[in-house]
C-alpha cells in the first residue's frame, strides 16, 4: 500500500516535470515572438535547410583525391582501399607510369557513392595519403544513381 502510494507520487511528479517543460518553453517562445531577446531559447532545434550545424573537422564527408605538386593524383594504385572497402564500391584500374619512382598511376578511379557507407576505411588504409574525406561537403544527394558514381575528374576537382 505504502509502495503503491510511492508510485502514485512519482506519477504526479512525472507529469509535473513535463508540464514544467511545456510552460517554460512556451514562455520563452512567447518572449521570442514579442521580440524580447533572451539568452535561453525555447527549443534546441536547428532549423536545417536555413540553419546549418557547423561540421567538425573529423567529420567524414565527400571523398577527394589528393594531387602531387604537378597536378597528377598522388594515388599509386596499390589497391589497398579497394581491398579494405566493406561496401566494395571503389574501382581502380592501374596503368604504368613512366617515372620509375612512381611506377603505377590510376587510369580509372571510381567511387560509387550510392553504395559507400562513409566508414572512412579507405582513408585509413591508403599508404600515400592520396584519399581524404575532409571536403566538408555533405549535400550531394542526386535523383539518379548514375549521378552518384564519381570518377577521377570529379574526385580531384
Amino acid at each position, binding site marked *: 500500500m505504502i509502495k503503491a502510494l510511492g508510485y502514485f507520487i512519482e506519477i504526479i511528479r512525472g*507529469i509535473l*516535470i*513535463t508540464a514544467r*517543460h*511545456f510552460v517554460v*518553453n*512556451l514562455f520563452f517562445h512567447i518572449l521570442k515572438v514579442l521580440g524580447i531577446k533572451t539568452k535561453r531559447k525555447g*527549443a534546441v532545434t536547428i*532549423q536545417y535547410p536555413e540553419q546549418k550545424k557547423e561540421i567538425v573537422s573529423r567529420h567524414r564527408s565527400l571523398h577527394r583525391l589528393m594531387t602531387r605538386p604537378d597536378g597528377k593524383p598522388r594515388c599509386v594504385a596499390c589497391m589497398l582501399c579497394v581491398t579494405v572497402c566493406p561496401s566494395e564500391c571503389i574501382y581502380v584500374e592501374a596503368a604504368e607510369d613512366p617515372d620509375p619512382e612512381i611506377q603505377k598511376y590510376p587510369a580509372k578511379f571510381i567511387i560509387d557513392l550510392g553504395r559507400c557507407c562513409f566508414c572512412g576505411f579507405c582513408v585509413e588504409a591508403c599508404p600515400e595519403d592520396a584519399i581524404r574525406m575532409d571536403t566538408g561537403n555533405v549535400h550531394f544527394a542526386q535523383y539518379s544513381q548514375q549521378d552518384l558514381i564519381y570518377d577521377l575528374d570529379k574526385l580531384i576537382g
Partner: protein
Amino acid sequence: MTETLTEILIVFIKIVCALVWFLLLTLYLTWLERKESALIQDRLGANRAPIFGIRIIGLFQPFADAIKMIFKEDFVPSFSRKFLHTLAPFISFFFVAITIAAIPFGDILRIGNRTINLQILDFNVGLLFILAMLSLGIYGIIISGWSSNNRYTLTGGLRGAAQVISYEVALGLSLIGLIMVYPSLRLSSIVVYQGELLFGFLPKWGIFLQPLGFVIFLFAALAETKRVPFDLPEGESEIIGFFTEYSGLKWGLFMMTDFMEIIIISTLLTTLFFGGWQVPWLASDGFHFPWGGELLLPHVVIVLFQVAAFNIKVFFFCWLQILIRWTYPRFRYDQVMDLGWKLLVPLSLVNIIGTGIIMTI
C-alpha cells in the same frame, strides 16, 4: 407548417455547427499534439507547410496531412475480408461522431421569442447514450483486427477486447455516485444542477462533490481513448495494432477517431465534473458574487460567456490528455486488468457507498 420547417432548420444548423466544431477541433488536436510534444521535449515541432510563404507556426499542417491522406493509395490486402475490412473504420468513426449530439454546449439562447437549446438533442438518457456509443466504438477495433486476417491485427483486436472488459465496468460505476448526487441522466439538467452553490460560495461542480469519482472516471476514460498509457490495441512499438493493414483515408478515420475520443472525453469531464458551460457565480442575468457584488449583463454576452467557458474547459482537458500521453509509458496487458479490477472497481464501489452514507446524513 412554417413552424415545423424552422424547427427542422434550427436542428439542421445545430448539427452542422456541432460537427464543424468537432471536426475542426479534431484537425487542430493533431497540430496541438505535435506542438505540445515538441515543447515538452524542447523541440519546435512541425512548423512548415507554408501557404504562399506564410507558415504561422505550422497552422496549415493539419490540412497538408489531410490532403496527403486523401491521395494515398487505399490498399485492401487480398487476404482480408473485404466488406468487414472496409466497414470497421466507419463503425469506429460513426459511434464516436454521434456522441456529440448529446453534449450541451451552452444554456438556452433566446432570439426574439424563440428559445434555442444549445445542444442538438436533449435526451432523457444523454449520459447513458454517450457511454453506450463509446463502448460500441470498440467493435470497430475488434472487427478491423479480425477482418484484416493478420496475426498482429488480431492481437491488437484481442487486446482491445481485453482492455474493454477491464475499464468499462469502472467507467460505469464511477458515474453512479455522480448520478446519485445530481439525480438525473439528462446532461443539461446535470449541468444546471452544478450552477448551485455549496456553502454559499463554492460552485456545486462534480469535482467538489465527487473527487474520488473524478479520479476513477479520469483513469477509465483515459483507457477508453486507447492512447498511450493504455494503448494496448495499438502498441505501436511492438504490434502496430489493429490498423496495420489500413492505409489512406481509412487509417485516417481510425486516427481521427482517436482524437475525437479525446474531445468527447474532455467534454464529458467538463460536463460532469467541471460544471459544463457554467461560469462560477454567473446566473441567467449576470454575475452574483458571494461577497455581495452584482454585475448584470445582457443575454447574448452571458451566452457567449457560457460557450467560451465550455470551450476553455474542453481545451484544458484536451491539453491535459495530450500531456499525459507524452509523459507515461504504456501499461502492460495484465497491469491494466489489475488496475481496472483490483483498484478502480473496488474504489468506485467505495465511492458509491460513501456517497450514499454522506447523502443520508
